């Protein structure tokens, strides 16, 4: 199934949950906030949130900024 993650189309195995998706793409332990199709998904709900074809996922974290 295809999912748009941080603006890029990615292919995933079906029935993937948000928690696994984050783990696949996070390179470190930086705290991440997730948004699925424009809606913020709180951390405790990541595991129960199953992704589906065409979903749009945004993963953001803090960086230096002025």
């Amino acid at each position, binding site marked *: 199934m295809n999912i748009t*993650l*941080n*603006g890029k189309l990615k292919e995933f195995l079906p029935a993937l949950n948000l928690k696994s998706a984050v783990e696949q*793409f*996070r*390179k*470190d*332990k*930086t*705290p*991440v*906030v997730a*948004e699925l199709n*424009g809606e*913020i998904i*709180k951390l405790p709900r990541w595991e129960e949130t199953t992704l589906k074809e065409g979903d749009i996922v*945004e*993963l*953001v*974290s*803090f*960086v*230096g*900024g*002025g």
Partner: protein
Amino acid sequence: MKIIQKTVEDTPFIIAGKTFTSRFMLGTGKFKNKPDVTGSITASGTKIVTVALRRIDTQRHQENILEYIPEGITLLTNTSGARNAEEAVRIARLAKESGCGNWIKIEVINDSKYLLPDNTETIKATEILSSEGFIVLPYMFPDLYTARALVKAGAAAVMPLGSLIGSNQGLKAKEFIRILIDEIDETPIIVDAGLGAPSHAAEAMEIGADAVLVNTAIAGAENPAGCAEAFSLAVRAGRQAYLCGDRSRPVSTTSTQPTPKANASSPLTGFLYENDLSS
């Protein structure tokens, strides 16, 4: 024994009911080495720092900026990258979800050449986020009507630009900032953007700004911590000068000298809306 008296008494610097011991605010972008962020915070004594939100890097390890910000510092997340009010609101909600508080510096920019803030969209975002309980500090182009609208919309402070972001040009907008300082009493005025030297920061404080925010000039310095301290000292010096009554430019009395007040060049009589219906 001689008793040393404090020569100048200052009022506390308060934003949204919270008191801060420093009137110097630091941006954390563009530092070459992250430990310099910590060094600059410590050396300057700043109590408020800005951070940004971005997509995570899925290719390489990313340093967590929050690890370099000591405890007790108020985090002010900016909405940089937002091109309109809707995007700014989205970024603010994501920031709040991260658990790092609800202080937001609204930054709405859709001009890539001059990076000028969009005042209209900034007012809209301020209205929405204030109603949602955010502490909102909008970055804006120094325009009096906008500043008033921002205050009405619930802004906790107003942040006019000194000059273009990252330009180090100093206080180019001085006379317009002076008007905001003169007219806006309800919230602090914090000069943000373009201050490239401690003397610029002092100049902003001398005319009565409540605080300044600096990033580029410090992040790009050879010794960022030393430079942050220099800015912080300049802020204190400028503040003290302001409290002592230095207004840095006398009010002119002749028509050929510059004056900080406007003087109409068209007649101030015979307006269309003036009616005198008495007989």
